[in-house]
């Protein structure tokens, strides 16, 4: 039943590109719905879509749709003459939310139809000119419904995993990181870890925003000692020099480069200005640093529990980095940790050290489970390539 419907209710429908054009007119201030001079005008239906273009290394789309049909429970497939799903609808059409996935020529279209009270609520935001809130609400609703309804362990939901990671809540005491690619292999472990610690530390600060040639930077100020304490480092003269050296070397990081087209790119520094100041001889060191705004936005895809904010020794640092490296890879929700390959680095070390490293690995994975960063579903591959599942991790030395 359509709420508030009667025979005299008029439905004005804008489909596809027409809806986008109307929305463009509304949001850029060219057209106001109030110009229709109507009382009680409501939004009856909003469809939102994401189109994922097929990629060369994609897996079988039919398998993805079949598995999504199994996950959804209330999915209704439309099949072609070869029995392959062409469209998968999830839920009942008359529900307030209704999902469809369409096969297109060289893409998949993911669509959410919003009706009834949620559409009316969103309509109020649109009518009141709260466009940012309108888009925020719809975007979150879109992701939430697909996340609950379809198969996620596939390349076809890479966009969804990316969104969920970027917008999930990341507690202040957690270590954050982005997707790690070549940079990881070329950087010194400690230098790289210190950088992760620093961006995790500084993201909670607010500061003065400045725009340089279209790029926003936020200048923050903090006591060096506060950073050292946060990463559980002793405040002695040697360590202080090490940390000052870290800030001294920040600008040697490779620049961030965005390529927009063959003839257009932008390159920027993450930390263009770093000031370290000690106002009196025995006074505290103050760090003033300008940070590229997107490093402060909290949109990091991955976060790790507080135990990852610090490390107890170099072995522990290696263990943590190896786990971070395994987790922070691309979009898949299934991660591979090469245990033996990691342990092989230590075969010449004392047996007790190797045992400690194994304990560290187990301990950190248990922490990840405890903080719900990962689920306790493990698939082990033995030397004979046999796979076996485990729910709990046990130490076997």
């Amino acid at each position, binding site marked *: 039943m359509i709420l508030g419907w009667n025979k*005299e209710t*008029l439905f004005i429908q804008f489909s596809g590109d027409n809806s986008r054009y109307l929305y463009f007119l509304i949001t850029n201030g060219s057209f106001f*719905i109030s110009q*229709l001079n109507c009382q009680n005008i*409501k939004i009856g*239906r909003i469809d939102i879509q994401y*189109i994922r273009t097929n990629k060369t290394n994609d897996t079988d789309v039919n398998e993805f749709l079949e598995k999504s049909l199994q996950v959804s429970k209330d999915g209704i497939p439309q099949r072609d003459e070869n029995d392959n799903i062409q469209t998968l609808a999830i839920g009942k059409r008359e529900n307030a939310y209704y999902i469809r996935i369409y096969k297109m020529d060289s893409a998949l279209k993911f669509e959410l139809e919003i009706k009834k009270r949620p559409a009316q609520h969103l309509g109020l935001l649109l009518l009141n000119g709260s466009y940012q809130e309108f888009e925020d609400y719809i975007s979150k609703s879109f992701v939430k419904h697909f996340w609950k309804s379809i198969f996620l362990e596939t390349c076809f939901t890479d966009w969804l995993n990316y969104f969920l990671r970027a917008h999930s809540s990341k507690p202040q005491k957690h270590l954050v990181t982005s997707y790690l690619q070549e940079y990881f292999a070329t950087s010194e472990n400690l230098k790289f870890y210190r950088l992760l610690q620093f961006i995790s530390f500084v993201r909670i600060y607010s500061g003065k925003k400045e725009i340089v040639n279209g790029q926003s930077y936020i200048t923050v100020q903090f006591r060096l000692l506060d950073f050292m304490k946060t990463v559980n480092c002793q405040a002695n003269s040697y360590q202080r020099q090490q940390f000052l050296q870290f800030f001294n070397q920040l600008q040697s990081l490779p620049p961030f480069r965005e390529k927009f087209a063959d003839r257009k790119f932008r390159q920027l520094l993450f930390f263009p200005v770093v000031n370290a100041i000690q106002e009196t001889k025995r006074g505290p060191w103050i760090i003033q640093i300008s940070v590229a705004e997107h490093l402060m936005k909290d949109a990091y895809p991955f976060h790790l529990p507080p135990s990852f904010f610090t490390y107890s020794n170099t072995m522990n640092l290696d263990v943590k980095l190896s786990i971070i490296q395994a987790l922070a890879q691309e979009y898949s929700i299934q991660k591979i940790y090469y245990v033996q390959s990691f342990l092989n680095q230590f075969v010449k070390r004392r047996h007790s050290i190797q045992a400690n490293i194994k304990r560290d690995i187990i301990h950190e994975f248990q922490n990840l489970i405890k903080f719900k960063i990962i689920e306790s579903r493990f698939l082990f591959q033995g030397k004979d390539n046999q796979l076996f599942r485990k729910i709990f991790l046990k130490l076997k030395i």
Partner: protein
Amino acid sequence: MQELINFKDQNLNLDYLTLNIPNSVGRILEFAEIFFRYGFNSKVFYVETNKSQIILEDKKLSHTLTFRLESDSWLEQRNIVYSIFR
């Protein structure tokens, strides 16, 4: 800093929008003219007969909206549409 999410950053797009306006079937022409000024042609779709009819069109315009009606009684009562736009 938690920022609001926008369509552009997420590559999301609207694909359908319906305005429900109570007690307004008699104002179709008025609305069609308003939207026409903003680049929309108009047509009416009669649910009962599953038929569509263009009521205001300039072929240079590339956008169209649809007034959805449960029956074609509107047409019978308001044949003025024909006289103006035929």
